[in-house]
């Protein structure tokens, strides 16, 4: 049951061969069995999930059920869920019960899907290994001594171990794509503005974007149909028609122009990851695509630019966590300053504090031009590189992450080494472009990912490319043995 696609599950439900309650119980049982080992969920919502499932079953009786009605899913614990703890994996919000639903949560609930629970993540989405969570690290189902990637590590592990058919994630510098690569998933970070950020706890507002983390491209397309669209409650939401992402999945790839940036294949890339990416590229040639070597000459600026822009925005966004209106409050504060300082120091973990401090520094008087302004200029150069490339090619391909999953604890004492795990994904966020990671084979038993980057609002094409590849390969169908 747990290995079926959303379409297959939908058919079973519509034919009456199973019920949503049965399906929901099946996945809740899997969570009960495996979550202690993986730590993929922060909250499991058994009672509300079964109530939602019973409501979905009523819809099947009344013949009002839609395509995704009754199918279980999980939300990254960054999305506000009314009446359910929304912790962002931080002590600061350990007891925060959101008073409203995020737009993404609202839309998915309206589609009739059942929320199994909230998944673990790096604290406030700051991390690439899911080791900064207040609730402890998530383990990679492919090797539980290794990290699942981050920051959407709980969603990645949960889908990879089939504790849920699909999950949501968010991606500020690679947080959907990198864990998808490390856990053998199909993950899509859409164009900035495609999916509403309302109720999604903000990390870096000019970079954050939500998206699906799925077992395959068709599932991701179905989820994109539900998640996308204009929202007046998000001032950066883009008012643009949402296509049916499933309608073009089977389009031919004949004539597709793929660009391979030489900067994505240089030093630091694991040779086995490179070999798998090259094999995948050859598969696309067989499907009718042409390959062109290109250059994104300012790629080397991406990580440094990001570590100015993202911390600057995070220091501003997280200033609302001050122990006054919600979240953790220090006991017996002596004065207002003590209240702020102790509430924040007790509530935030070390990586969040580091980033707040970097952001505070680069925005402080006298340093703004040297850092923040400079970074925004470098950001323009990075974006211009992509636009030049898209005059010659339709999509860009390369590795998602430079290596397979690393060991727990391997990079926790070296923030800079950790930051380099996102070296190929960050530039896409800076430019606001859509990017995707799809399974591209294994290296010593661990998954590797192929990244596909498209031009603005080209999500349908990315999903089409991924789907066609998945028709001729079966990497995406591989499931870690311990969870089969």
């Amino acid at each position, binding site marked *: 049951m747990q290995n079926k696609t959303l379409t297959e599950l939908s058919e079973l439900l519509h034919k009456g061969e199973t019920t949503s309650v049965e399906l929901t119980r099946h996945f809740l049982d899997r969570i009960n069995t495996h979550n202690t080992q993986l730590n993929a969920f922060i909250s499991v919502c058994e009672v509300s999930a079964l109530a939602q499932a019973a409501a979905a079953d009523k819809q099947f009786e009344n013949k009002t059920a839609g395509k995704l009605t009754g199918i279980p899913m999980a939300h990254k614990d960054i999305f506000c869920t009314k009446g359910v703890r929304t912790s962002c994996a931080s002590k600061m919000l350990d007891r925060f019960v959101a*008073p409203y639903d995020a737009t993404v949560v609202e839309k998915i609930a309206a589609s009739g899907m059942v929320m199994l629970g909230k998944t673990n993540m790096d604290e406030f989405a700051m991390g690439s290994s899911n080791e900064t969570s207040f609730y402890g690290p998530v383990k990679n189902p492919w090797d539980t001594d290794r990290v699942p990637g981050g920051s959407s590590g709980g969603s990645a592990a949960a889908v990879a171990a089939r504790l849920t058919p699909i999950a949501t994630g968010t991606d500020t510098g690679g947080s959907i794509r990198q864990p998808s690569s490390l856990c053998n998933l199909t993950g899509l970070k859409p164009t*900035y*503005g495609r999916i509403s950020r309302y109720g999604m706890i903000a990390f870096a507002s*000019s970079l954050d974007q939500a998206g699906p983390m799925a077992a395959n491209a068709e599932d991701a397309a179905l989820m994109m149909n539900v998640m996308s669209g204009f929202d*007046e409650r998000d*001032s*950066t939401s*883009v008012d643009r028609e949402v296509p049916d992402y499933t309608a073009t999945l089977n389009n031919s790839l004949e004539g597709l122009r793929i660009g391979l940036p030489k900067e994505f294949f240089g030093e630091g890339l694991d040779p086995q990851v490179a070999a798998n990416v090259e094999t995948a590229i050859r598969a696309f040639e067989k499907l009718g695509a042409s390959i062109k070597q290109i250059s994104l000459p*300012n790629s*080397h*600026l991406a*990580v*440094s*630019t990001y*570590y*100015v822009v993202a911390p600057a925005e995070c*220091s501003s966004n997280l*200033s609302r966590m001050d*122990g*006054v*209106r*919600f979240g953790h*409050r220090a006991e017996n*504060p*002596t*004065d*207002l*300053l*003590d209240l*702020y*300082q*102790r509430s*924040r*120091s007790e509530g935030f973990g070390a990586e969040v*504090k*580091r980033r*707040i*401090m*970097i*952001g*505070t*520094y*680069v925005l402080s008087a006298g340093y703004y031009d*040297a850092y923040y*302004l*400079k*970074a*925004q*200029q*470098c950001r*323009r*150069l990075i*974006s211009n590189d992509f636009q030049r490339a898209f005059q010659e090619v339709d999509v860009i391909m390369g590795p998602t992450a430079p290596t397979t999953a690393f060991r727990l604890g391997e990079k926790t004492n*070296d*923030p*800079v080494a950790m930051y380099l795990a996102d070296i190929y994904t960050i530039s896409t966020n*800076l*430019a*606001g472009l859509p990017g995707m990671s799809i399974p591209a084979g294994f290296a010593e038993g661990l998954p590797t990912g192929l990244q596909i980057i498209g031009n*603005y609002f080209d999500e349908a094409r990315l999903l089409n490319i991924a789907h066609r590849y998945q028709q001729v390969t079966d990497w995406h169908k591989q499931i870690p043995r311990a969870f089969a």
Partner: protein
Amino acid sequence: MNLDKSDVEKIAHLARLTIDDADTADYAHDLNNIFQLVEQMSATDTAEVSPMAHPLDAHQRLRPDVVTEQDQRVLFQSIAPETEAGVYLVPKVIE
């Protein structure tokens, strides 16, 4: 750039954080490494480049100046650490 312990304390204060004495050296070390990474930008000439604040160069959308939100003070204050008579309580700031 080389931040020392007193710089770390100053930045922490601006960020309304306190760092334990025992940890300031580690923070200084990590922040210096991160700024070393950030310094890679400085070799790039950006004199003629306009800053990019928004990926799609979009502008803030305006809406008609009418009330659209309902008062939800009771709901929102129900999750506050300490309130009284509809206001948030903090330690006394004025003697």
